[in-house]
């Protein structure tokens, strides 16, 4: 049994303008010790997917359907009390903006101790010892003194370390990281990624890494889900996604990225911009921006199906295998040609 198995997850928000289908039929699973990368642009539904799993959407205007089985228990239908037991204990989450994700009026020690004592029957003193241990593990210098400091006294990178310490304080089985390095500088990003990598090895936790950065995914993920307009466009092992991409949107993402190892005069650009989820395009949601669009794309929404040669590599596109194979080769060859 996988640690987490998400089946046909749907999250709809009701707004003044109508129903926004923020997540519309997403499935994936993850085992202990694995890292799953979810890539997509803003509004693709990658963050909402994880907030739904954590039960952190505003219940007043949200409807969630489908299943999210954590060790066989459905997170979507369990009682709020049971969900609270799991949250922060078995499943923990790190957010994008370390500047606003910590409460400004409590010391980081107070906030860390709160996280332990919500789930464990420890005295304040024991909780503080545990908090200190974690702060040292995530590499906060002079942790004994800094534990009584307030969040505003830390830099962005240090705050993200505190968030990681807080997420790991109860040895969770699953860590969900929502763009944990987007707000940070590149050298700090390298520190944080190395830290998550090391801690994952130490605790054998599963990690879901949400990001828009294909580089981050390539470096740390075992499996990759590419999301576009609330749906999964492509899903497979990281080598398959980068070596044999099979969806025009994935090609676009790869081609549009300027990178250190290749030289191109012009970047591949995906025309237009992501669609509104209030009124998503008919058929394949990518069709208005797709250079390979065919008649069938406008009418029929492609199902996520295995590619010809790899049952674990799934994609949702009407193009025939031969064209996809040829175009992917062309794209990769183009990038190789530019390689210095």
């Amino acid at each position, binding site marked *: 049994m996988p640690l987490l198995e998400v089946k046909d997850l749907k999250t709809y928000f009701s707004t003044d303008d109508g129903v926004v289908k923020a997540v519309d039929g997403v499935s994936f699973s993850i085992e202990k010790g694995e890292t799953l990368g979810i890539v997509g642009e803003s509004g693709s539904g990658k963050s909402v997917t994880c907030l739904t799993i954590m039960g952190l959407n505003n219940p007043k205007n949200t409807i969630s359907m489908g299943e999210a089985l954590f060790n066989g228990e459905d997170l979507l239908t369990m009682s709020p009390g049971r969900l609270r*037991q799991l949250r922060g204990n078995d499943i923990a989450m790190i*957010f994008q903006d370390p500047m*606003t994700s910590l*409460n400004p009026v409590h010391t980081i020690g107070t906030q860390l101790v*709160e996280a332990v004592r*919500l789930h464990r029957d420890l005295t304040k003193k024991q909780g503080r010892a545990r908090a200190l241990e974690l702060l040292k593990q995530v590499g906060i210098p002079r942790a004994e003194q800094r534990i009584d400091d*307030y969040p*505003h006294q830390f830099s962005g990178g240090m705050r993200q370390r505190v968030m990681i310490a807080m997420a790991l304080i109860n040895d969770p089985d699953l860590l969900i990281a929502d763009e944990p390095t987007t707000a940070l500088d590149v050298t700090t990003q390298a520190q944080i990624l190395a830290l998550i990598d090391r801690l994952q090895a130490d605790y054998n936790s599963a990690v879901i890494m949400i990001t828009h950065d294909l580089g981050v995914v390539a470096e740390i993920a075992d499996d990759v889900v590419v999301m576009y307009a609330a749906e999964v466009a492509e899903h497979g092992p990281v080598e398959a996604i980068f070596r044999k991409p099979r969806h025009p949107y994935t090609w676009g993402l790869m081609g549009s990225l300027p990178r250190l190892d290749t030289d191109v005069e012009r970047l591949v650009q995906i025309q237009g911009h992501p669609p509104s989820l209030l009124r998503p395009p008919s058929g394949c949601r990518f069709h208005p921006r797709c250079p390979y669009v065919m008649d069938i794309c406008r009418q029929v929404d492609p199902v996520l199906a295995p590619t010809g040669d790899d049952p674990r590599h799934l994609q949702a596109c009407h193009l025939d295998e031969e064209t996809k194979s040829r175009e992917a080769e062309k794209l990769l060859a183009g990038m190789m040609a530019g390689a210095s």
Partner: protein
Amino acid sequence: MLRYLVRRILWAVLLFVVVTLIAFVLFFLIPANPAQLACGKACTQQDVQRVAHALGTDRPVYTQYGWFLGRLMPVSFKGGPHLKKPNLGRSFVNRRDVDSVVAEAAPVTASLVFGAMILWMLIALPVGILSALRPRSLLDRASMTGVLIGISLHPVFIGLMLSFLIGYEAHLTPIAGYANFFGGLYGAPGGPIQWAYHLILPWITLAILNAAIYVRMIRANVMETMNEDFVRTARAKGAPEFRVMRAHILRNALLPIVTMLGMDVAAALGGAIFTETVFGLNGLGYNAIQAIGNYDSPTVMGIIVFATTAIIVMNLIVDLLYAWIDPRIRLV
């Protein structure tokens, strides 16, 4: 911290001088002769001049202001420097010590203001928080309607209606008047129960307007704070909703309320004029109105001195309190 206090006190002194000077000059500009009023209609021109000389109103404004400041100083240089008791002078009208006028009126106003403050916070906190938790619910709509009514009604109208309906028609409370908390003088009603019994209608009157304003403020602040990222973090940790509200939302949402409360209370201490007038409470506002009508500048100045000091002190308390509850603020 010390540096901060020193700077604040220097500013406070400057502010004090400016406020009193403006008040003094304004008084001097009024085309009325306090001596004529103090003396009475029957006085001759010479009588009036004698009275003016006795009151000092025949001297230029800067001399009078100098005397006023001199009386407030704790030292005197007349006959060698020595310490003395600062005082506010005597009333033009009845020659009473203004010190004692203020000392009698201040507890009345303080009783009214602090009592009303407790009442309005007791109403505004739960209503504001519940409205924020369930926006657009029946409770929220009802409370927002109440807020509109509370803000639009004038305290004089509220006071008169309450006094008429509850005091006069239903005989449930006194119509007007004040009872001393520590026992009445000369057989007048007194003691804590009579005190509260006499003040209940004034409290409600003053509280209605403020409760309305505070419900709206608290509701808006709580709703804003609920959407903060750190609240989501608290939920992600597995904190129960009650704890999220108490430890994470309220502490942050109420920060600006503290400042506002300090300012409102300080301003009201200068005289909740309408409420005091309607209920005949012999407080600072009531006394100020009387004194202005009589061109009794020492009494008016005395009340201004008291009100300014109250505002400065409350401001300082609010700042210190703010620095204590919000670690991001440092007093420098």
